[in-house]
């Protein structure tokens, strides 16, 4: 099973380089520089990582709950993205990959993709993804891909309030949004208009 997957992957990787051409070339350039750590960490947390990427295979958000080197992260995300993009629309949302399960769901042009360990419940992972999308939707008000690009830090903050260290920490949507709003308020109190936002608005 796994053996086939890897060969399949290799094939798919070859096939779709052009899709992620930008990412891949950037990655390979860096992979020489970044120092790879010797021990491959195989710590299994509930959720290993979460990726958001567009239909073109561009990463929009990535969160890793396992300590991996940059090179490994890039390799993994590249593989996973290509694998998920190769899936046809009516296929089920679960994939077996290495010793992990990939659970993904597509919302409009964005793919939300989680890797959980083998014993994890796929349906609850799907639920987590959906919750997160709902949270984003509530926060931004019918969220779209651009919201996540321009306010990527907000998207991260929401994710961090929702999931901590690979575990869903708060199952109540209301509580998450409350925490985010209060933190935002604190931020506004503390400082004159946010410079990053300002720059986005102006330039």
């Amino acid at each position: 099973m796994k053996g086939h997957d890897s060969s399949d992957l290799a094939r798919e990787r070859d096939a779709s380089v052009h899709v992620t051409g930008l990412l891949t070339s950037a990655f390979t350039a860096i992979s020489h520089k970044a120092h790879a750590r010797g021990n491959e960490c195989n710590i299994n947390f509930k959720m290993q990582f979460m990726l958001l990427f567009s239909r073109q295979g561009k990463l929009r958000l990535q969160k890793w709950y396992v300590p991996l080197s940059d090179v490994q992260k890039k390799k993994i995300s590249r593989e996973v993205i290509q694998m998920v993009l190769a899936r046809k629309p009516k296929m089920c949302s679960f994939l077996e990959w290495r010793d992990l399960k990939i659970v993904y769901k597509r919302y409009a042009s964005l793919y939300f993709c989680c890797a959980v360990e083998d014993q994890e419940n796929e349906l609850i992972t799907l639920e987590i993804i959906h919750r997160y999308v709902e949270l984003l939707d509530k926060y931004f008000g019918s969220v779209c891909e651009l919201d996540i690009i321009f306010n990527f830090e907000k998207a991260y903050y929401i994710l961090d309030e929702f999931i901590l260290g690979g575990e869903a920490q708060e199952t109540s949507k209301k509580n998450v949004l409350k925490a985010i709003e209060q933190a935002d308020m604190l931020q506004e109190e503390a400082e004159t208009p946010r410079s990053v936002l300002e720059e986005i608005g102006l330039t």
Partner: protein
Amino acid sequence: CFYFRLTLSNNTSLFLQQAKYISTCIDEIKQELKQDNIAVKANAVCKLTYLQMLGYDVSWAAFNIVEVMSSSKFTYKRIGYLAASQCFHEGTDVIMLTTNQIRKDLSSPNQYDTGVALTGLSCFVTPDLARDLANDIMTLMSHTKPYIRKKAVLIMYKVFLKYPESLRPAFPRLKEKLEDPDPGVQSAAVNVICELARRNPKNYLSLAPLFFKLMTSSTNNWVLIKIIKLFGALTPLEPRLGKKLIEPLTNLIHSTSAMSLLYECVNTVIAVLISLSSGMPNHSASIQLCVQKLRILIEDSDQNLKYLGLLAMSKILKTHPKSVQSHKDLILQCLDDKDESIRLRALDLLYGMVSKKNLMEIVKKLMLHVDKAEGTTYRDELLTKIIDICSQSNYQYITNFEWYISILVELTRLEGTRHGHLIASQMLDVAIRVKAIRGFAVAQMATLLDNAHLLTGNTQRNGICEVLYAAAWICGEFSEHLEDPMQTLEAMLRPKVATLPGHIQAVYVQNAAKLFATVLQKHEGETDSQVAQETSQLLIERLPLFVQSANLEVQERASCIIQLVKYIQKLQQKNVEVADEVTALFAGELNPVAPKAQKKVPIPEGLDLDAWINEPPSESESEDEKPKSKAVFAKEEPKHSRRHTEVDEKELARRREVRKQEQANNPFYIKASPSSQKVFDAPGVEHIPVVQIDLSVPLKVPGMPMSDQYVKLEEERRQKDKADKKKKDKKKKREKRGKGRKADSGPESEEDITPAQQVDIVTEEMPENALPSDDDDKDPNDPHKALDIDLDKPLADSEKLPVRTHRPEVLKSPAEDRENESIPQESKKKSSKEKKEKKKDKEKDRKRSKEEKKKKKKHKEVEEELMESQPEEAVQSEDTKEMAVPPTSAEASDLDFWLSSAPVPPAAQVRSLTLSPPPLLIPLSVCRVVNERLFCISPSGLSRFLTSLCLFSLLFTGLAHFCLFAYACFS
């Protein structure tokens, strides 16, 4: 705009533009980072975070990130921590600098400062950070705000992983959090403990009653799923737990509407039932329930549910194949699904679906899929599955081996499959083990050899040519069945053969010799010896091609055989009869041997493999030997003999393990199929009893699928059998059969089907007293191994979490020391007093629990159900209630008590759970872990504990004296 520009499309013309843009951006950011204005810096760091996500290396800015992190303004701190959590990893050296900053933020009065720090920490915690901050985080677990408590509890798990020593000191508080008033904190604690317990379940068995209570009371699906999963991990260690679980789980299965919970329950019930193995009779009901629910999942239009249903079904299949088989129709239906992953899952299940009756039908269906399949992965999967299904449990389900051989031959038409060797080994296996089929197999193999060019379109990479290996060997070995050995011989010596891989050529050459022997045998008696001489001539003409082969094996065999043939030719010219002598070269029948047989031959008593047979040669002798022996093999031979004599059993076993590991890891290593190996080890064949087969099927021209007609033939044959058998109610039966086949529930039972040929499957031979070997190895690198810590042992002082002090602990001031000293002494006295009291208490325990029962009327509904359903077990329900009382006293001992309320099968009474003599209770204030919480240790543990206390007090007084002395000296 910065972010938008970065997201621009993947258009290649824009690519250069973008690369340029980014490099200017990075320059700009570098400038901004140099400024003193923190707002500008934070902005730059924010941009860097984005660039990092795009895959650019930003490790050079690590220090700037730390700067922003340490800003006092929340706005910047937030950005800083986000950047750190995205960019830092264990190798980042600046992390060392952050310890104090993080500690400051953790104790900040603003809960969001603390929250942000905790979130960040969860991403980049290192062993050092974990050690230094463990105590701070532990304190936060009792923070007033649930927001902080929740995060602190969750992050503790990461801390445990990085710094396992913190587990024991922190665990009591973590356990407290299971009963936190805030549901979020509670669920976080459940999460963490469940994660811990799943890795090292045996240390957490004592928590089972507590979790059981949570499970029956909680309504939060997220928590329920976690707990249920945990129980799945605990039950293999404690079978009685499984019995207790079945009922609440089945209740949940019935009642829940959440698919995720349902799925989890079904999974756990399956796991529990597997661990219980042959248990109580009413288990079949639970299995039926699971299968029914899974059927609903599979029938659902949602692909996800379908997939999961099939996945769970395959788990049931392992232990309860019967209950799955009744849903064969559904699973066959899934084979036609659009989704490949669903088809693959259904394929897994097919394995258990087959019977003698339907095997042909199912395989026929699979063959159709093979034809349709796009993509080699799926096709290869199909191929292996077909072979798996057919060959399972010694070809149990195959009634007609002619059919199977033709299926194998059809499979060779697959282009680009990687499983040539698999097909080949099947061919060999069947031909060797099923004597009656040899005639047919040889004929098929001969056609294969004749049409070898069809298989070897692109020789080097094509895995399918492995099949020729099997074909050549079968034709050679069983050549007496060949109709026209001359033609086959000719086919085997075609020049094209030289393009095949070496090991196949070697088999060709060797078997050409066998065929030669057969031809001689056949034609020698005849008056005209023309044919025999032609054959010798053919060999002499063609073999030189192989003598030139680069492959040593081929070369050696070819040159050997060519000399032999030349000699025979001479004899032939003198009209000497040689056939018998040549045939004698390949005499002897082969017996199949189990793949592991050699390994398992026991060493006879009194045989010492390590002992020298002769006097050990002196060093100088062995050196002398070297130059004498021949060039090529000189190095190899002495080495080999050495090894065999020196290495003992253990060492061998270890090496075997290592080798296996290596082979498993080496993607280039193709595992040799056992049957193809033994082929060469054994001597040739003499007279195999030829079983006459009535070949009702004409041999087929290659290229035409022919297995199908076997299905029809088989059908006819079976009907004929049937008709012969039961002439009396012939008509009736036939009608039924006709209907039955379509509905897949024919009245015909398995036993009714007799195999077409009375084939004798020679079972593989094993040495008499072979031992079953189980190679069980755990991953030594598993980080969770470090967390395999006994949590019921009392906490020693040395295990306290390091608290931040200005000086190392050893140099404490004398005043402090005295305080420390006095506490243990006091408590020591206390403990000895209380010991006696507690002993009495323990005896009264049961009485008291009964009284409590009367007082407490708030029982959980599920428990009441339990009671009602098992009225005869009145004593048990009492215990269940006792469990419902908050677990203030020794839970470990309660576990036995609690569990014993379930009927115990005699086998389960021998348990691994050892809680030894009656536990004593002493107050834990000594360990300053949790107030008023009682702790249980065994007498031996107690004495150890007391001695350690004494030692500590001695140490502290000694230190105090030393300090006083030093102080006196200095002043």
